[in-house]
C-alpha cells in the first residue's frame, strides 16, 4: 500500500482529506503511482503532469524520505520505505511566486 500526500488544492479537487492510499501492481515507480492516482481520481488528470506530453508540471515536485525525486526518470523505483508504507510519497506544490 503506497501512501500519497497531495497538496491542499488537489485534496480539495479530489475530495479527500489526509493521505491517499493506493495499491500499485508490480514494482512501484513514480510513474506507476501517478498512473494509479489518476485512475482512482480522474479529476487530477492534467494537474500533476501534462495530459499530452506526460511531463511533470514545472511547479509540482515529488518528495520521499526527505529527498527530492522530481528530476528522477519516471520509471525510477520508489524508495523501499515508501513501498513498505513506512514513509509517504509527497506531491508538493513548489514554493514559487515571491
Amino acid at each position, binding site marked *: 500500500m503506497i501512501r500519497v500526500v497531495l497538496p491542499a488544492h488537489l485534496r480539495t*479537487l479530489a475530495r479527500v482529506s489526509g493521505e491517499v492510499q493506493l495499491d500499485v501492481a508490480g514494482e512501484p515507480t513514480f510513474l506507476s503511482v501517478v498512473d494509479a492516482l489518476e485512475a482512482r481520481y480522474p479529476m487530477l*488528470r492534467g*494537474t*500533476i503532469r*501534462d*495530459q*499530452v506530453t506526460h511531463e511533470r508540471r514545472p511547479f*509540482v515536485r515529488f518528495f520521499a524520505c526527505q529527498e527530492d525525486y522530481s528530476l528522477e526518470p519516471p520509471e525510477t523505483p520508489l524508495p523501499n520505505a515508501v513501498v513498505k508504507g513506512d514513509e509517504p510519497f509527497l506531491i508538493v506544490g*513548489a514554493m514559487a*511566486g515571491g
Partner: protein
Amino acid sequence: MSTVRLLVGTRKGAFVLTSDGKRETWNVSGPHFAGWELYHLKGSPADANRLYASQSSGWFGQLVQRSNDGGKTWEPVGNKFAYDGTPGTHKWYDGTQHPWEFKRVWHLEPSLNDPDTVYAGIEDAALFRTSDGGQNWEELPALRHTKGDLWQPGAGGMCLHTIVLDPQHKDRMYVAISAAGAFRSDDAGKTFRPINKGLKSPHELPDPDAEVGHCVHRIAIHKSRPDVLFMQKHWDVMRSDNGGDMWTEVSGNLPTDFGFPIDVHAHEPDTIYVVPIKSDSEHYPPDGKLRVYRSKSGGNEWEALTRGLPQSDCYVNVLRDAMAVDSLDKCGVYFGTTGGQVYGSSDSGENWKPIVRDLPAVLSVEAQTLP
C-alpha cells in the same frame, strides 16, 4: 420577480452574486475554487442553471468545472485541450517560429441552444468545442490554418478571448485573438477568414493592408442586429455594419480610445459602453477618475457616466471580459475591476453602486437574467 445572477471570476476564486429584479441588495456566494484563477464563467442560454467555469493555476494547470444547479455545486469535467494533428508553429516575439503550447482557457461560450455544446478560446490561440457537456474537447483547426503561422503573441499572451455566436445566422461565429485580429466563420467553424479591413495599428503594424496582426481586445453585438459589430481594439473603438467585412472608427470624443471591455445595452442596439484606460503602458483610468462612457448613437458621440463611481485617486483597470448587462427593463450594467470591486447600475448606467468592494482582482463578469 426576476432574479439577476452575476458570475464573477477573480484571481483567487469565483463568486456568484444574486439579487432580485430591484437590484438593490445582493447575496454573495463564494469563493468557489478558492485560491485558483477563474478566467471566465458563463451560463448556458439554453439552460440557465448549466454553468461552465475555467479554473487554472500556475501550479496545477487548467480545469473546467460544470454546474447543473446555478453554481451551488460543481463538478470537474474534461480538461484535455490537445491541438489537432501536429500543432506546428506560430511567430514568436523575436520573429522566429515557435511551437503552439496550451497554456489556459480564457473564454467559454456556451451554445445558444444546446447546454452540452460549449466553445472554448484558449492560449496559445485556438478554438475548441465540446458537445458532451465538457467531457471531451476538440479543436476547430481551420482557425489556426488562417495564417496562424503569422500570429504573434502580445504582452498579454496569444489568447483567443472573444467568441460571439450569431443568433440569427446559425452557422456564423466571430472570434478575436490578441495581436492576431478578428475572424469570422460562416459554416460553424469549418472555415474561417480574417475580418480586419479598416483596422489601423500604425505603430504596432505598419502595413495598412495586413490581414492579421491587429490587437483586438473585445467584440460585442446586439442579438437583434448581429451584423453590426462593436470592437474595442488596443487603441480605437471600431464599428462594422456588415459582419466585419469593413470597420470604421467610432472613438469620437472619448478621452482615450484605449481600453478592454465593450458591451451593448440589452434593449437599445445603438447604446454601447466602454471604459477608457489611459494607455497601453498605463492601465488605469485617465486622471484617476473611473468613468464608463456610453454612446447612444452607436459610437462617435460619448457621454461620461460617473455618478457613484470614484472620481479621484482611482487607478484600477477593467479587463475585457469584466463587463456585462442584464436584460431587465431598465437594463442593468455591471463591471469588475482589478481592485476587486464589482459595480452595478440598475438604470442603464446613470447611477452606480459597488455590489462588493474587496474581492481579489476581477477577471470576468457575466450576467444572467432569470425568470
